[in-house]
């Protein structure tokens, strides 16, 4: 692709004889977008970042940067800058000198350095903090210094390694907005690593969901949320009710001993499948009106909604997010639209999944 700035081709990273950290990973990163690598800890997302930054080398496969192979280019010669999880600010330098570090290495003129550093600091709302020592800055401020230090070098790509994980919730939400806004203003590619699915959904243009050294699914936040490819993705991104069942025919699925109309297609008849229904798509109603009959087991107040846990007669758990209270122990009915049902095939690769999705959604307007 012409617009790809970074491309991984069958990249594997393996230490000694341990199982590979990254297993035959291929993807493309386009210019000027906000990407998120999302996955549980130890899934290999940080390894991808370190490979892009050049802190570590791939055991196998090629990494292209601007269509040039870049496997053996040392970190200091790459057009990327990183914002580290612990910020990695130099404690012996003040704010100004920290931001100026990269420019001084490039032997830029003092006047120019001063101007660029001022600009970068104002970008992250830290004007007037030039002479502060790092230890005098709060966590959020250090975070901004680290970002300023990365953007001042005008890299083509900025890598962010869980940069918000050390901040408290309120500050984190604030920084999410700021980072997104910063990316739009700068127009450069951001690659953001996180294990926080809400953060990923809120900020990204594109999400790569990674597990066990493989990319499970990539796509826009809505794609991934509405059409997860498998159990792992459905479970990791948001809350979900997952039950097994079978596809009687296209647009007709059987679960919990009943048949339901749905909008998914491209299956063999009677193929065993997994079915996802998001808790917020379930509506509490009377037993008669409900498509499913369940018994309320417990209820948690989550602020925005009640999280109600209930069980059907087969013993499947159904989580419901509702603004209305339910009564524990009571039989209730659950209603959902055919569009709320998402059917997943077992062991489907992303390629097959995309092809099938394209084939059956053609003109039928699947999705919400």
């Amino acid at each position, binding site marked *: 692709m012409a617009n790809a700035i970074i491309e991984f081709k069958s990249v594997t990273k393996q230490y000694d004889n341990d199982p590979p950290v990254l297993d035959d990973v291929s993807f493309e990163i386009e210019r000027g977008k906000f990407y998120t690598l999302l996955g549980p800890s130890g899934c290999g997302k940080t390894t991808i970042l370190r490979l892009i930054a050049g*802190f570590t080398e791939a055991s196998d496969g090629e990494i292209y940067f601007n269509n040039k192979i870049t496997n053996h280019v040392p970190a200091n010669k790459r057009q990327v800058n*990183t914002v*580290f999880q612990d910020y990695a600010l*130099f404690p012996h330098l003040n704010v100004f000198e920290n931001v100026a570090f990269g420019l001084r290495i490039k032997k830029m003129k003092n006047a120019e350095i001063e101007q660029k550093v001022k600009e970068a600091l104002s970008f992250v709302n830290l004007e007037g903090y030039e002479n502060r020592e790092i230890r005098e800055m709060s966590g959020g401020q250090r975070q901004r210094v680290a970002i300023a230090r990365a953007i001042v070098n005008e890299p083509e790509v900025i890598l962010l390694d869980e940069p918000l994980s050390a901040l408290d919730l309120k500050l984190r939400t604030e920084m999410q907005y700021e980072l997104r806004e910063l990316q739009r203003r700068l127009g450069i590619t951001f690659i953001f690593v996180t294990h926080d699915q809400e953060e990923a959904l809120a900020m990204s243009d594109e999400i790569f969901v990674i597990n066990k050294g493989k990319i499970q699914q990539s796509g826009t936040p809505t794609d991934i949320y509405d059409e997860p490819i498998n159990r792992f993705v459905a479970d990791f991104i948001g809350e979900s009710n997952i039950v097994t069942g079978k596809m009687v025919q296209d647009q007709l699925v059987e679960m919990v001993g009943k048949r339901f109309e749905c909008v998914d297609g491209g299956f063999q008849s009677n193929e065993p499948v997994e079915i996802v229904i998001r808790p917020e798509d379930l509506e509490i109603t009377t037993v008669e009106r409900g498509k499913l009959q369940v018994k309320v087991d417990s209820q948690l107040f989550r602020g925005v909604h009640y999280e109600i846990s209930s069980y059907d007669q087969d013993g499947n758990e159904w989580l419901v997010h509702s603004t209305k209270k339910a009564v524990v122990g009571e039989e209730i009915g659950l209603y959902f639209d055919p569009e709320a049902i998402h059917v997943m095939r077992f062991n489907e690769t992303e390629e097959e999944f995309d092809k099938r999705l394209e084939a059956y959604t053609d003109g039928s307007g699947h999705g919400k």
Partner: protein
Amino acid sequence: MDRKITPVSKIFLVIIFFILYAPIFFLIFYSFNSGGNMNNFEGFTFDWYKELFQDTRLLIIVLNTLVVALLAALFSTIIGVMGALGIHAARRRQTKNTLLSINNVLIVSPDVIIGASFLVLFTMAGIKLGFYSVLLSHIAFCVPIVVLMVLPKLSEMSPTLLDAARDLGASRLDVITKVVLPYITPGIFAGFFMALTFSLDDFAVTFFVTGNGFSTLSVEIYSLARRGISLNINALSTLLFLFTLILVVIYYFINQRQQKPVLGGRK
């Protein structure tokens, strides 16, 4: 835990410190005695100090001691820092531990053995005993100390700092000079001053490897004391004690500067 300090423990502490410091103060006290011995104090005098400063031979020895100490501290700091960097950079844990153990053995092994082995080495290698043999041996026993002072600083340093520097375009040399060395500077200073004090007050090793016509203070004091009691020694020891005290104070202030209190940066 918030345990109370009982009067007993206070008294214990006072007694211990008294026992430790009493001989030194006794020595200092009698250096001002006009009586000429340490049996009874007859009157206050600076005579012993005056005599000390008129003794050019002794002054040269003082100068020798200082030159050896400063040079030994300087060279051992350079070598020690490089050694610490090397040990820190060792990838395999076993290599690291082995190197560190070899380093530590040199610190704990008795001075007498180090001195004797140096004497054997210098004679076999044909190095004339004197200034250079003393300097070389001092550098040798100071290096492990510097390594030991610098290493904790290195391991305290987050490895992402190095990644960050590389990421910002720093070459390997830049990383060392612009990030690592500034970061471990307190350790380097601590190592330097430690080496300085170790070299200044070393007796055993120096005693072995010093030759005719070259002597350091500790060796000289020893030979003076053997010849018979003169309050010259008291005066000299007093000055030496004050000098070490000054070093300790300097070291204290360097440490203080490193741990400046945080000014209002807290959230």
